[in-house]
């Protein structure tokens, strides 16, 4: 074999550092061209197709389900109702009971007695083709005794409220409190407010959003004797496997879950979906492979939603603008059921409401409320955007009250660079950063002074187009999460991550990660890490993931954790590989281990020039295993599991300049600049991409997106005609920059970037719009800032109010197909 020589020539003498290089993502070609296996591409011999009959009513008792006509339909193999599956379906798990007395009503995958939101499954059809399964849906007749739907959180907690679940005695799932005074991390909040010169109170609405990932959810289950393989478009194959085993009783070791390439998630695929459970139960029952792929309408209506909080925020300060206390009372909409981490999302945010400011006192209370809507759960940022919105908005309100510049107020109260690490009033230890430096850079990027000057000119001339500037000086907690902290918050699992490195005989490297990507670029970033660590070429590294048979241990991808936790596990595994290789190298080089240096992928003997052995050569040597030390195994492969000790805390300053057309209410972002500190940057291109995508979603919350329900509990924004997701055409150029303060909690020094843009941008945009029209008497405008809301706020006062629930575009589509208009012979 001449592999040793080849490997030697392949290894450069001193490879350029990979970390920091703006490498194009190695996975993108196949993802963008679709030359890969998405779950819906899977075709298995004898595979059947599942479709779901869904409730058209928001709340009702099921009195009858007639499946006889559907059973007769061509191609239909079986039709099953909730009663058929009641004994085996268990409950969709909730892994985060945030309080000891939290009420969980249970969450059947398919309704048995009653339905609690529009879109809930009431029957499933199994057919030989997808078309046949779709055709039979309308042949199932379901009768309901209607119950009044609970749709408004403030009404739901009032006296005499209708109940979402009649077997529990209120609409409140839990009451969660964090009080800094009681926790010993701050002063008494009530006293702080009693002593304050100024108190400002506001009610903010964080509207309901839909994650709207690009690839719809899809699942395929293949039974093989007692064993089952599930392919699913999921963010969490590892968590899903454990949960499915617990829910269905199928032993964990008989269950393999594969997340092939997955087309986005944004938290929306951090779930144990009812349809995943149903596909598994039906594959078990029929002994045949089963596939289900949702339609876009099903996705918008039934995949979990995000946000949906009403926030009552009080801030206390002295006349000089030194903040004295923060008090937050939150109503958080759970929807009809508690899914995987539904209750935990607002609780995760509880610790972030103080933001970057040195509040001496802080109290947070949150009620989780049931409504007859689809459950909420994780959505990009999960708890932290809500918190950041509240604090960054209330700081602006306080600045107005005090007549202070909003940036000056922030500067007066934020943690100074020399104060890190800093333990906040919420008890978190912020790791590193410099808020002033990021802010100064962002001000330079946007051209702040010129914009303020233009704003003054437009105001003085009474220009119909006014200009506003809004800030968000934010931080967030990333790197989820220290397992012990999760335990203290009653979360059902840990926050560690696992990795393995396999050194192949030809010197190539397989990296197995437990952090399952769904579009983030793990394969590229992990390759860069390993190339540096082991001194092997970037191209020689293959990253494997997403299959519990290949990557047996993992906690998957969410909460900007992958690089911080999963990447660290990879680095630690690489360190172990080097340690094992060192013993073999010492043996082969006939030197003492302590006399070996490892650099650029090669072991050299100190003081003996010319002797060198690459780690790739050692991989071949232990494969042959003809000559290796007596006391070691013939392998340099290694595993590592990393459990962080603390979160990481990216921060940044986002500045938005907004034009508001007071004639029409149309808002247009004129300029947007942000400087984010995400710690060490492994790949600047990926970081930039994550920031851009995050900005798009955060701006979308401010300006475009809102899940609207009508008075009967129907999702009015049930298509992309009405649920407006912006495209590149609707977004401005982004001026982005970075400061780098290395995260001390992991060897990479990374803090996480997946959610930063989404968390930071929303309040910057709203603050900018308000800054443009505040002199016209506007105090608040509800998100999204539709032109109509802005126009009404400017010309009629108030916050723009609820959007009309009367005939909508979606309903207009209905009437297009209604009898009476369809016979007009129009050339559609």
């Amino acid at each position, binding site marked *: 074999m001449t592999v040793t020589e080849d490997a030697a020539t392949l290894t450069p003498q001193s490879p350029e550092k990979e970390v920091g290089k703006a490498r194009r993502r190695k996975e993108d070609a196949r993802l963008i061209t679709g030359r890969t296996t998405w779950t819906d591409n899977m075709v298995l011999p004898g595979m059947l197709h599942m479709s779901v009959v869904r409730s058209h009513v928001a709340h009702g008792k099921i009195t009858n389900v007639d499946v006889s006509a559907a059973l007769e339909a061509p191609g239909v193999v079986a039709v099953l109702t909730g009663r058929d599956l009641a004994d085996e379906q268990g409950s969709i798990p909730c892994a985060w009971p945030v309080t000891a007395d939290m009420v969980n009503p249970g969450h059947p995958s398919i309704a048995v007695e009653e339905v609690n939101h529009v879109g809930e499954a009431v029957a499933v059809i199994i057919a030989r083709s997808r078309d046949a399964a779709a055709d039979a849906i309308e042949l199932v007749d379901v009768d309901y005794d209607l119950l009044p739907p609970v749709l408004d959180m403030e009404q739901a907690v009032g006296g005499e409220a209708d109940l979402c679940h009649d077997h529990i005695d209120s609409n409140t799932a839990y009451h969660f409190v964090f009080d800094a005074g009681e926790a010993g991390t701050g002063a008494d909040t009530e006293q702080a407010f009693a002593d304050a010169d100024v108190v400002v109170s506001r009610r903010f609405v964080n509207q309901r959003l839909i994650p709207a990932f690009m690839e719809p959810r899809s699942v395929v289950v293949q039974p093989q004797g007692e064993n089952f393989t599930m392919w699913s478009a999921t963010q969490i194959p590892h968590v899903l496997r454990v949960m499915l085993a617990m829910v269905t009783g199928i032993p964990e070791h008989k269950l393999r879950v594969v997340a092939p390439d997955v087309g986005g998630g944004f938290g929306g695929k951090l779930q144990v979906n009812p349809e995943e459970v149903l596909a598994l139960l039906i594959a078990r029952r029929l002994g045949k492979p089963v596939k289900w792929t949702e339609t876009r309408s099903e996705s918008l209506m039934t995949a979990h939603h995000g946000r949906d909080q009403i926030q009552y925020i009080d801030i206390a300060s002295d006349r000089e603008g030194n903040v004295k206390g923060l008090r937050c009372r939150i109503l958080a909409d759970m929807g009809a059921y508690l899914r995987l981490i539904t209750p935990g999302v607002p609780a995760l945010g509880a610790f972030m409401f103080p933001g970057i400011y040195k509040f001496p006192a802080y109290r947070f209370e949150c009620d989780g409320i049931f409504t007859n809507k689809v459950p909420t759960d994780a959505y990009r940022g999960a708890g932290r955007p809500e918190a950041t919105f509240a604090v960054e908005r209330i700081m602006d309100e306080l600045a107005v009250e005090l007549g202070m510049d909003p940036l000056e107020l922030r500067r007066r109260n934020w943690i100074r660079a020399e104060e890190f690490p800093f333990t906040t009033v919420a008890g978190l230890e912020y790791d590193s950063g410099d808020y002033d430096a990021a802010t100064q850079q962002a001000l330079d990027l946007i051209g702040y002074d010129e914009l303020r000057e233009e704003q003054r000119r437009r105001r003085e001339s009474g220009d119909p187009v006014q200009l506003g500037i809004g800030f968000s000086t934010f931080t967030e907690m990333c790197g989820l999460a220290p397992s012990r902290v999760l335990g203290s918050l009653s979360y059902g699992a840990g926050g560690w991550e696992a990795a393995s490195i396999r050194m192949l005989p030809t010197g190539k490297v397989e990296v197995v990660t437990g952090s399952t990507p769904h579009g983030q670029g793990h394969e590229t970033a992990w390759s860069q890490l390993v190339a540096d660590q082991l001194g092997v070429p970037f191209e020689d590294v293959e990253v494997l993931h997403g299959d519990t048979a290949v990557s047996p241990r993992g906690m998957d991808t969410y909460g900007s954790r992958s690089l911080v936790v999963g990447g660290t596990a990879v680095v630690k595994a690489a360190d172990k590989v080097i340690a094992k290789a060192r013993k073999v190298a010492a043996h082969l080089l006939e030197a003492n281990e302590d006399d070996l240096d490892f650099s650029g992928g090669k072991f050299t003997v100190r003081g003996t020039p010319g002797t060198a052995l690459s780690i790739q050569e050692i991989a071949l040597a232990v494969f042959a295993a003809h000559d290796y030390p007596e006391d070691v195994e013939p392998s340099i492969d290694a595993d590592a599991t990393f459990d962080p000790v603390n979160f990481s805390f990216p921060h940044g300053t986002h500045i938005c300049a907004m034009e508001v057309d007071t004639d029409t209410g149309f808002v247009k972002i004129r300029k947007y600049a942000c400087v984010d500190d995400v710690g060490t940057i492994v790949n600047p291109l990926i970081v930039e991409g994550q920031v851009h995508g995050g900005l798009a979603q955060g701006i979308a919350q401010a300006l475009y997106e809102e899940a609207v329900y009508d008075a009967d509990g129907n999702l009015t924004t049930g298509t992309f005609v009405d649920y407006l997701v912006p495209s590149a055409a609707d977004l401005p150029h982004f001026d982005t920059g970075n400061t780098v303060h290395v995260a001390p909690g992991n060897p990479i020094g990374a803090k996480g970037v997946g959610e930063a843009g989404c968390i930071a941008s929303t309040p910057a945009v709203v603050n900018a719009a308000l800054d443009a029209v505040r002199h016209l008497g506007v105090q608040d405008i509800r998100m999204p800032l539709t032109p109509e809301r802005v126009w009404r706020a400017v010309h009629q006062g108030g916050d723009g109010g609820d959007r009309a629930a009367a005939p909508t575009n979606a309903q207009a589509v209905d009437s*297009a197909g209604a009898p009476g208009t369809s016979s007009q012979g*129009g050339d559609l």
Partner: protein
Amino acid sequence: MIPAAFEYVRPTTVDEAVQAVAEGGEDVKVMAGGQSLIPVMRLRLAAPSTVVDLGRVAEMRGVRDEGDVLVIGAMTTHAEVIADPLVAQHARLIAEATETVADRQTRRRGTFGGALAHADPAGDLPAVALALDAEMVVAGPGGRRTVPARDFFVDYLTTTLDEGEVLVEIRVPKLAGQWGVRYEKFNRVAQAWSIVAVAAAVRRENGSIAEARIGLTNMGPTPLRASATEAALAGAGASPDAIAAAARSAAEGTSPSSDLNAQADYREHLAQVLTRRAVTAAAGL
């Protein structure tokens, strides 16, 4: 998102198309570019038994010059309209409005005639056809007839097309004299339908406005003309004040709907603002 089963016919001439529609029974649906029909079929809000696809009827495609009139085949795609030199020269308002229709993919498949026959009040082209006094040439079992745009749009998604009839081509009078045009569209994101839009064509003569034609998109169940504003502008000075005064009556006689994007009173307000802007631009001010 799978349509119910349907029969599919693809004629190659107008005569064949008319025959196919006649033979298609009661639930026949004519498909031009399919950009509105296919989505409602996928959502199963429409389930025609037969779809007659006009995509291969070559004689319904293209633009020709007939002296004072430009004739646009109903099956001419939006992309073709935008790129057509005759349209650019003689009916620039159509090109300008068509450029705002939906997105690039839709403009590749969607057609001028399809958009008119669909008669969606939020669609951009009906108001433009109305403002330009276009005429619709319609073929049916009894031969051809010509319907002026003002009579063509009857109600929400409803035209005077009888059962069995097909819109073949659109005759657009060329604008003679010093005309300026503007399509002022108001929507929330680039690919969305108009919340309100205003199509304006203005003829100037000696520093005054001799004639203005203003079509309103989405201000009622059909496209409308802003007649009161047109009357006020006829002979008015070409000044911002005169235009602003005239635009205040833009919403007269309209009956806009209320939906998630706008309630009726806001639409009425937008009609005034957008009319002012469209006329101002069309007048070259």
